[in-house]
């Protein structure tokens, strides 16, 4: 049976509605990535640059969210993951962390960042290109 024939009587109505996603930069180096993403069209996704004020805003956002995505640069201070992650854990909100690793970053430096984000992330992706952040966000919609 062809794909079209098989799909002919499948229900067309959506089976899920859009999730509320908060995307937060864990260090200033990731602010540019989020700023670029924020310029695009998103529904139900909010972006928070790395700053104390943004951390507070994220904490407010978490209660109503379905997913918090943290973005970190390998080698940068990612200690904000603890604050955000604890809030997510308390409220049973899923967390995913994206670590952008430049080619020059050593394994040891990467490990330092990982040790900060791991306890608070239910999913970690380590990639060389920040374009993947958009791809993953689009896939979750």
């Amino acid at each position, binding site marked *: *049976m*062809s*794909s079209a024939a*098989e*799909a002919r009587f*499948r229900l067309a109505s*959506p*089976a*899920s509605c859009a999730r509320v996603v908060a995307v937060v930069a864990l260090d200033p180096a990731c602010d540019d990535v989020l700023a670029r993403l924020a310029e695009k069209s998103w529904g139900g996704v909010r972006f928070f640059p790395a700053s104390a004020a943004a951390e507070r805003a994220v904490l407010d956002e978490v209660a109503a969210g379905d*997913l918090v995505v943290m973005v970190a640069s390998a080698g940068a201070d990612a200690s904000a993951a603890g604050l955000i992650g604890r809030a997510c854990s308390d409220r049973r909100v*899923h*967390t*995913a962390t994206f670590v952008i690793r430049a080619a020059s970053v050593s*394994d040891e430096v*990467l*490990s330092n960042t*990982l*040790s900060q984000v*791991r306890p608070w*992330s*239910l*999913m*970690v*992706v*380590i*990639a*060389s290109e920040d374009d*993947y952040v958009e*791809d*993953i966000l*689009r*896939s*979750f*919609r």
Partner: protein
Amino acid sequence: MLRKEQNDLLTQTGPGTPLGRLFRSYWIPALLTEELPENDCPPVRVKLLSERLIAFRDTKGRLGLMDEFCAHRGISLWFGRNEECGLRCPYHGWKYDVTGECVDIPSEPEDSRFARKVKLTSYPLVERGGVLWTYMGPAGKQPALPEWEFATVPPAQSYMSKRLQECNWLQAMEGGIDSSHVSFLHRGDINSDPLFKGARGNQYNLGDLRPVFEVVESPGGLYIGARRNAERGNYYWRITQWVMPSFTMIAPRGGHSVHGHFWIPIDDENCWTWNFDYHPTRPLTDAEVAAMRAGKGIHAKIIPGTFRPVANKDNDYLMDREAQRAGRTYSGIEGFAMQDQSLQESMGPIVDRTKETLVPTDSGIIMARQRLLRAARALVEQDIVPPGVDPVHQRVRSASVVLPPDQPYKDGAREALIAHPGVAPATV
């Protein structure tokens, strides 16, 4: 989810398509060696990447893979006579050698040069590790021969099977990347299948149903680490290897053999699921080989004379509701292979990814799709050789390890993720 055009791009592998061109950058498994067991044996029809081909072994043992149809009147050469270093069409006697060159047209005058103007498209076919491999890309870009470890160990250490899977290659392969389903779908078999049972790691699998995933780019594709709780605060890691375009290697269990798959498109709505099992340092035991032949582990029982599984969609995969109710199997289907295949085929011939609802534990699947899309774009637009073509990218292993909580698995299992000949696998 994907946009429709992305789903189309990733699922279409026929001639002229971007993913078709990507697949045509690699050596891919075409047949089991046993399908062409001896010189002048019957030819075998092969459909790969939406191309209908015929494979044969000539009088001198040379292997050929070429257009299935005679240039004269379009007869299938499956009816051909494999004799005297060529495959002869039974209709009017046109004869082709293993390169597809027409070497004889009986109706032409004795010294006619017309036969030299007739040539069927052909592809190289080479034997390695019990598999006949082909490369279907441009002749000038043929890569070095495959170096997968299962194909380079002594024959007694390796076993290979294949089965027909009636769905697109990508949804089948994505099952190989998604190790979060193991604790559910396969939980009834982990401790009973002879090729899996008894490993300490099985208890970690069954005891922690919410693994944490780490996806890391590798030179040839991705490392997909699934982390579960072990004793004393340590973590049990199962690290799957995905190498582009469609090789996956499952993390080993205890002293069992190591296994994995290739998913090779037949056309856009069918694929071959290739299943390899090997041990890097010892021959497989008679009991192991017997279990593999009986369809245990990642292998399946096959209808004799075909590669179609005995449990298939025409018989509802021999669904056993009582086994499902009693917990002997989680889905009611017997065996790892058909548990996976039944669900993947139920998605439809080509799953509509515009309708899926992915979650963060699907990040390995998402990353794999994006790497494929990037590689196809780079190949088509800039002629960049994709990851996985270099034999170095193929010398990999999966691993299962227990590590301290602060150690990245890529560090802790660094050497375990490389195929070092004669070195035992890292396994729990």
